[in-house]
């Protein structure tokens, strides 16, 4: 219907509640997480098959009976891989994390719907298909943020998130309608052709402003970021890892896709706007966490800083810059995912997010603390780890594009970010002061397995980055060259 990976995800999303209902009869409701993880793995396999077809035969077009058009190119495959990969980690982790909650089958169903929405967003070949999948992702993420509805915090965060994000979606739709008025089509290829004939007009600027505001809300660019720390810290930890690691990056993807295929006529203007926004985003995202004492809030704010780095690579508009941005999306997904999952592990054992109350937890949960420290070092950009490679690529790209000031800002921000990351690590290693910490023990094995794989990926992708660089470069070339 919509290309094999999305079909599998949708089928599993719709059957998970049914399987969960059957499993409830035999009191083994947790097993539906296994079912959802299998679905994600099959989907990853199909993405790998599509990768083989596309790397030999170029972009593929799928037209279904809904006349929704999917056009899958290298960039789509690149993004879909990271979405499904982080999805597998999050769903395996949730097997134990969500054991105290009710409605677990619905949780997995929503998780799969969110992932299929994201994969559909990156596979879409026309703007409206894109919008439908985008809304699918948004609606399921609102529900997932508010999943622990018996507490006040998720409800408040979800309401704020819903209002801001759906106002953003409506703005995006409004921008799309103006674009439709100019060109008479919403197909990305058709828009590219039509706009290169029409040239730039006032209406194109108006629609670009609306579209960038709409996408900027979702990707938490600074004046529009206020929902992010609340929503990401209030959600259950696997969902925080998904939201911070990949959902926000879907917005960055959308800016890349729309910017470099539709708004090519006014490229200089929107790139310079993004360069300035990236600078502001970086500084806000790295200065505010210095004051945070809540661990998940700190990590959520630092996501904003990393969005700033990604925008810096994007603002260069070159192949190298985009390669850096895409690599950073991949690496940030893994690093921030690992960091949030470790924070979730501490939350699972101690039921607190205050850094003071978890002093010395590293002595009781050594594996979690070691992986946490590793992911924080990678987020700072320490040399042998993967965060360093992508940040270096972004800095090199800014120098190459005569925007060295932006590169210097990235370096300065890395230094600032080290301050709060190191403070967090210090909190893990302090002498134990709370009784709760004294009684804590290492997390369950099912939750440690995804963390160990992520930690291995952080190190391996840092030492042998060639495969990832080539993958990201072919994605960047598909975006810039193929249109």
């Amino acid at each position, binding site marked *: 219907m919509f290309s094999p990976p999305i079909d599998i995800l949708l089928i599993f999303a719709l059957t998970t509640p049914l399987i969960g209902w059957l499993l409830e009869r035999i009191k083994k409701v947790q097993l539906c997480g296994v079912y959802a993880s299998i679905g994600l793995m099959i989907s990853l396999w199909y993405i790998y098959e599509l990768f083989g077809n596309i790397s030999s035969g170029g972009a593929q077009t799928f037209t279904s009976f809904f006349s929704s058009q999917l056009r899958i190119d290298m960039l789509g495959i690149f993004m879909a891989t990271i979405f499904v990969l982080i999805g597998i980690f999050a769903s395996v982790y949730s097997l134990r994390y969500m054991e105290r909650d009710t409605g677990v089958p619905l949780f997995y169903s929503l998780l799969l719907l969110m992932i299929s929405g994201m994969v559909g967003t990156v596979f879409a070949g026309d703007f409206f298909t894109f919008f439908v999948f985008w809304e699918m992702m948004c*609606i399921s993420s*609102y529900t997932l943020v508010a999943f622990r509805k018996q507490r006040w915090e998720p409800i*408040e965060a979800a*309401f704020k998130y*819903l209002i801001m994000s759906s106002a953003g979606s409506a703005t995006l739709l*409004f921008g799309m*309608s103006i674009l*439709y008025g100019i060109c008479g089509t919403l197909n990305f290829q058709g828009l590219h052709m039509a706009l290169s004939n029409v040239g730039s007009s006032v209406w194109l600027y108006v629609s670009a402003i609306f579209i960038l505001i709409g996408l900027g809300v979702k990707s938490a660019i600074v004046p529009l970021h206020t929902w992010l720390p609340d929503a990401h810290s209030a959600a259950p930890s696997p969902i925080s890892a998904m939201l911070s690691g990949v959902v926000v990056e879907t917005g960055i993807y959308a800016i890349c896709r729309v910017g470099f295929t539709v708004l090519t006529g006014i490229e200089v203007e929107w790139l310079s706007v993004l360069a300035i926004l990236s600078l502001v985003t970086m500084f806000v995202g790295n200065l505010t966490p210095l004051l945070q004492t809540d661990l998940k809030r700190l990590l959520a704010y630092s996501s904003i800083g990393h969005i700033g780095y990604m925008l810096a690579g994007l603002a260069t508009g070159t192949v190298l810059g985009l390669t850096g941005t895409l690599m950073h999306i991949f690496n940030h997904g893994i690093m921030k995912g690992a960091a949030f999952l470790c924070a979730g592990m501490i939350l699972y054992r101690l039921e607190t997010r205050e850094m003071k109350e978890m002093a010395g937890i590293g002595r009781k949960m050594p594996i979690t603390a070691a992986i946490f420290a590793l992911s924080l070092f990678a987020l700072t950009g320490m040399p042998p780890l993967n965060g360093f490679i992508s940040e270096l690529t972004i800095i090199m790209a800014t120098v190459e594009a005569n925007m060295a000031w932006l590169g210097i800002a990235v370096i300065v921000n890395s230094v600032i970010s080290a301050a709060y990351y190191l403070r967090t690590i210090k909190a893990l290693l302090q002498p134990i002061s709370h009784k709760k910490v004294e009684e804590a023990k290492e997390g369950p094995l099912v939750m440690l397995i995804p963390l160990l794989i992520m930690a291995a990926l952080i190190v391996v992708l840092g030492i042998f980055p060639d495969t990832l660089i080539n993958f990201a470069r072919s994605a960047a070339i598909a975006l810039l060259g193929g249109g």
Partner: protein
Amino acid sequence: MIETPHYLVFSFTLYMIGIYCLVTKRNMIRLLLGIEILINAANFNFISLASSIPGLIDPLALSIVTVSIGLAASVSAVAVIIIVYAYRHYGTLDVRMLKRLKG
């Protein structure tokens, strides 16, 4: 016959009313209505631009609007659920009371 620019002015006005509603209103249900007004402004724009060429109405825009109405309905369904839970926790629909998250 009303010309296209009039429709555009109307839809921009509708959009501005939606934003005004989001900025000034304090009731959660009214904020939701603001979102609906924003989406309807975009839908109206699609419909008016579909008939901008005389003698032809583009079916693409109409199908887009049909799907968009469905999406708007799902957003408001989720929003109403969240509002119900917020009312249970806070005992009010005033959005100014939802200020416990800070920092």
